[in-house]
């Protein structure tokens, strides 16, 4: 059988990668290589064409500082059509923190200014202002909305915005410890088609290989139009890392 290949589109690695999000790329790459799946990583930036973007089988996008987020939002408007059709067609992806907010309908700043989002996910975000603390800390959540099982995932969140989900998306899971989308309704992240939005960096994939493998599987199934069963890998160290932080925060 010919070797399988997937192209990972890493959106704005220079601009939107402030929380160690590169770890997600390293993780996906390694987990594919260990299974003899070829990986190409396309660095999607301001100069990337829509055609190149459309060739991606899996997408990743992280968070950023405010000024850099402004640069990205201008460029994303140009790529919106392509990105939107990829997501709608079921190309899997993970969108973290600022990227998660971008995909929603809008971001309302503390002074009432509304910044339009891409409107792909049915959700919106509000920043309540400096009198409300940022939501920061280690977090645990189940990814029941994604995997159908209540298994604990771990990450670290750091966001000022509070995100509220509409009817068109389901949560990624329930918060076990931490704040999640808004610190009120107990939801964390969201799932739409095969795309995941989340506040969990840490980065999310190395310590939660279940989610990494779900993304790889969906990417291969979509590309090769067949059901795929990935061979298991030795995840002893990531399980130890996860258990160590769970034991500490669930005490």
């Amino acid at each position, binding site marked *: 059988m010919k070797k399988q290949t997937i192209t990972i589109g890493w959106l704005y690695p220079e601009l939107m990668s402030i*929380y160690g*999000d590169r770890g997600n790329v*390293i993780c996906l790459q390694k987990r594919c290589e260990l299974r003899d799946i070829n990986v190409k990583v396309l660095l999607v930036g301001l100069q990337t064409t829509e055609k190149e973007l459309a060739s991606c089988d899996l997408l990743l996008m992280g968070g950023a*500082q*405010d000024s850099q987020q402004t640069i990205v939002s201008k460029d994303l408007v140009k790529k919106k059509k392509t990105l939107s059709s990829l997501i709608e067609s079921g190309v899997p992806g993970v969108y973290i923190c600022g990227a998660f907010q971008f995909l929603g309908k809008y971001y309302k700043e503390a002074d009432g200014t509304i910044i339009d989002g891409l409107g792909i996910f049915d959700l919106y975000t509000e920043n309540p202002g400096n009198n409300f603390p940022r939501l920061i800390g280690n977090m645990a959540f189940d990814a029941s909305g994604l995997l159908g099982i209540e298994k604990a995932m771990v990450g*670290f969140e750091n966001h000022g915005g509070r995100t509220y989900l509409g009817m068109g998306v389901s949560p990624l899971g329930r918060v076990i410890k931490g704040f999640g989308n808004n610190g009120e309704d107990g939801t964390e992240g969201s799932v739409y088609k095969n795309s995941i939005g989340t506040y969990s960096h*840490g980065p999310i994939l*190395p310590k939660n290989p279940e989610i990494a493998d779900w993304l790889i599987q969906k990417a291969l199934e979509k590309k090769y139009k067949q059901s795929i069963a990935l061979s298991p890998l030795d995840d002893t*160290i990531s399980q130890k*890392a996860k258990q160590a932080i769970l034991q500490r925060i669930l005490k």
Partner: protein
Amino acid sequence: MNTLLIFLGKLVMNISRLLGKGSGSTWPGHIALSVNPYFISELSKKNPHLKIILIAGTNGKTTTSKMIATVLEKNGKSVMQNKSGANLLNGVASSFVESANLFGKITKDAAVFEIDENTLPLVLEQTKPTVVIALNLFRDQLDRYGELDSIAKKWKKAFSFLSENTTLVLNADDPQVAFLGEKLHAKTVYFGLEEKGETASHLQHASDSIYCPNCHNRLEYKKIYYSHLGVWSCTFCKLKRPQITLVNTMYPLPGSYNKYNTLAAVLAVKQLGIPENLVQDAIATVTPAFGRQEKITINGKTVQIFLAKNPASFNQTIKTIADMHAKHVLFILNDRIPDGRDVSWIWDIDIEKFLPQFSSIFIAGDRVYDMELRVWYAGRNKDVYSFESLSDCFWNALENLPEKETLYILPTYSAMLDVRKVITGKKIL
């Protein structure tokens, strides 16, 4: 009232020393400031002869402070300093408590203070410094400091109130720091490297400020020294790396990062009127600050500690020890408040190309398995030894170390204090 505060503070200082507690460098100042929020401001006004030098920046504060203090002392000046790590307002106030007599008078010639990024604007409100150094701005502890841009904005505002009696010493190679020197009353001088650099294609992943601080377009780099430090310009608004005031000196410590520290220190002491040749003689005698390339001999073997606390510092450190042909390393990753509680940053470090040259890798710390996972994903799984107990880890690593080899220890901040305690049996802060 300050008399009472100084008296009380000195009492607390002595008691905590007697008890061997490490809190003597912050508590006296904490008490003084909670009773009199203007304590620092009043004492500095009372001592107009005291030349105050403030050192800020993500990396290199402690080493630069030590260099400045060394040069001043070698040239017959008496110096007061805050303790390394005690770089918030309470640490500065404690230093005043320690050096002042009961009437608030200080006989020292100069005060050399390293200042935390968020605290710098507060200290500038309360003092009239002779020199302020901004070394660099790298991503560090986002959970505590917030984003780089917001720190740069706060600094820019604080600098705009400085008078022409203050000289700002700025890193020309760091775009965001260099930009702080625009449109000020204060005098500005710049340091930067003039040597072979990498081409722009070698930009490290953990490069923070590669967009123009003025117009937000992508900067062009003629040369890159490391991270986002280099010879930069903006082709859109024409902002560019400023003219360098000081490009060369002698360098007492290895590593590019120490070249920057040395340039900043030399430029600072020149502002205080110390002649060039005397500066050079004194700078040559500088030895590492504790935990920063500090060598310790134990059981006839050598260990050397290289603080590695954020992506820029880790990248520079691992490159420096690789150049020193390191074979045995110990990584210690903690996630306490002084380290930053978020350990995501280890995925921004470039370790892949260095790991193959190490014949053994020991790992410990609060987040030992996170670090082990990072190393595993970097493709290394042989001769990696992780321990939940730092003490077990250290003694095993030492046992494993062949005679005449050096164990290179790369700890985060609190891990550096911990491992020094394991090695020396004493607590230092």
